[in-house]
C-alpha cells in the first residue's frame, strides 16, 4: 500500500485501532526488505562471537540497523567499546535531522508519549510517519501527525527487526548470501516512492541531487560511514543557499 493509498478517505475516518492497523499495513512492503537483512546481521554476529541472547539485546535496545551492521563489522573479543560507540553515534547522527523534521508535527502530543515514540524512530518509521503527516496536513486533517499510525509502522519494524535478528543468530550458518537474491533493492524502492510523495517540483529537488552526488562521491572515495552525514549536510547547505536567493 502506498502512502497516498494509505491516506485515502475511508482509511482516515477516526478509529484509533484502524489507524494502528493502517500503520502496520503500510510497513509490510518495507519488511520485505528488512527481514533478509535482519537474518544476515544475526548470522554475521554469531560468527563474531555474539550469543543468541546478546544480539537481540543489541538490536532491541539500540534498534538502528546501520549502526548494528557497523558494530558487528568492527566487533572483536573483547570489543573496542569507544570505537564502536563512536561509530554508532556517527552512523545514527542522521536521527538529529529526522527528529528535527518531525518536531513541528509532535507539538500536540504529551512529552511522555513523544519521548517514548522517539525510541522507535528509524529510517522507515520516520519516513512513513512524516510522509503521512504531510499528506494529512495538505488534506486539512488535524492533527496532521497520527501517533497510532506511526506506532503501527514502528512496532511492526521493531518486532520484525528484533525477532529476525535473533532468528538469524540461531540459524546462523544455514543462511546463504541473501544479497544475491535482490532483497537489498527493497530499500531504494521504498525510499524512492516516499521521495516521490515529497516531490514539489524540480527546484525543490535540487538539494536532493546535491545530497546524492556528494554522498555517492564520499561513499566511493572515503572509507567508513561518512557518506550519509556528508550527503545530508551538503543537501541542507544547498537548500539554505537556495532559500537565500529566493
Amino acid at each position, binding site marked *: 500500500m502506498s502512502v497516498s493509498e494509505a491516506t485515502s478517505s475511508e482509511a482516515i475516518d477516526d478509529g484509533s485501532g484502524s489507524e494502528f492497523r493502517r500503520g502496520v499495513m503500510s510497513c509490510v512492503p518495507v519488511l520485505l526488505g528488512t527481514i533478509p537483512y535482519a537474518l544476515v546481521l544475526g548470522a554475521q554476529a554469531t560468527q563474531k562471537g555474539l550469543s543468541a541472547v546478546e544480539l537481540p539485546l543489541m538490536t532491541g535496545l539500540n534498534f538502528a540497523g546501520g549502526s548494528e551492521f557497523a558494530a558487528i563489522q568492527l566487533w572483536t573479543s573483547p*570489543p573496542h567499546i569507544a570505537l564502536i560507540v563512536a561509530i554508532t553515534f556517527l552512523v545514527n547522527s542522521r536521527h538529529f535531522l529526522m527528529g528535527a523534521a518531525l518536531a513541528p508535527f509532535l507539538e500536540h502530543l504529551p512529552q511522555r508519549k513523544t519521548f517514548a515514540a522517539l525510541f522507535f524512530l528509524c529510517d522507515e518509521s520516520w519516513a512513513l510517519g512524516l510522509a503521512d503527516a504531510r499528506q494529512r496536513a495538505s488534506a486539512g486533517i488535524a492533527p496532521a501527525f497520527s501517533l497510532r499510525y506511526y506506532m503501527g509502522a514502528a512496532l511492526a519494524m521493531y518486532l520484525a527487526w528484533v525477532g529476525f535478528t535473533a532468528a538469524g543468530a540461531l540459524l546462523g550458518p544455514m543462511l546463504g548470501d541473501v544479497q544475491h537474491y535482490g532483497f537489498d533493492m527493497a530499500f531504494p524502492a521504498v525510499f*524512492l516512492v516516499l521521495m516521490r510523495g515529497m516531490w514539489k517540483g524540480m527546484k525543490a529537488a535540487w538539494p536532493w541531487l546535491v545530497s546524492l552526488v556528494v554522498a555517492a562521491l564520499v561513499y566511493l572515495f572515503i572509507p567508513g560511514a561518512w557518506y550519509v552525514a556528508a550527503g545530508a549536510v551538503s543537501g541542507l547547505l544547498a537548500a539554505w543557499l537556495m532559500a537565500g536567493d529566493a
Partner: protein
Amino acid sequence: MIDMATLATIVLMAGVTYLTRIGGYVMLRNRVLGARATAVMEAAPGCVLISVIAPAFVSRNPADLLALAITFIAATRLSMLPTVLIGVASAGMLRHLMG
C-alpha cells in the same frame, strides 16, 4: 551468557542512539523557524533518504545499476508494494542472468 564488556558496549550504543533520536526534537520543539530554516527542514527528509541509498547509484555491478534504473522508473508511477516487488525481482533476476 552475557559478557560484561559486550553488555557495556550494547548499553552505551543504545544510549548514544537514543540521544540522536531525541536530540533534533529537543532542539527544535516549540520553535518558530524563519523562512530559510523552514526551507532547509523541508528539504531535509529527501536529503537523508537519498544519502542513505546513494551507494546503490554507484554500484560497480551493471546488473545492480540496471535494476536500480527499473526500480526508479517503477517508483515514479507505481505505489509502494508493486515498486518493491519489481525492485527485488529485477535485482534478483538481473544478477542471476548477468552473473
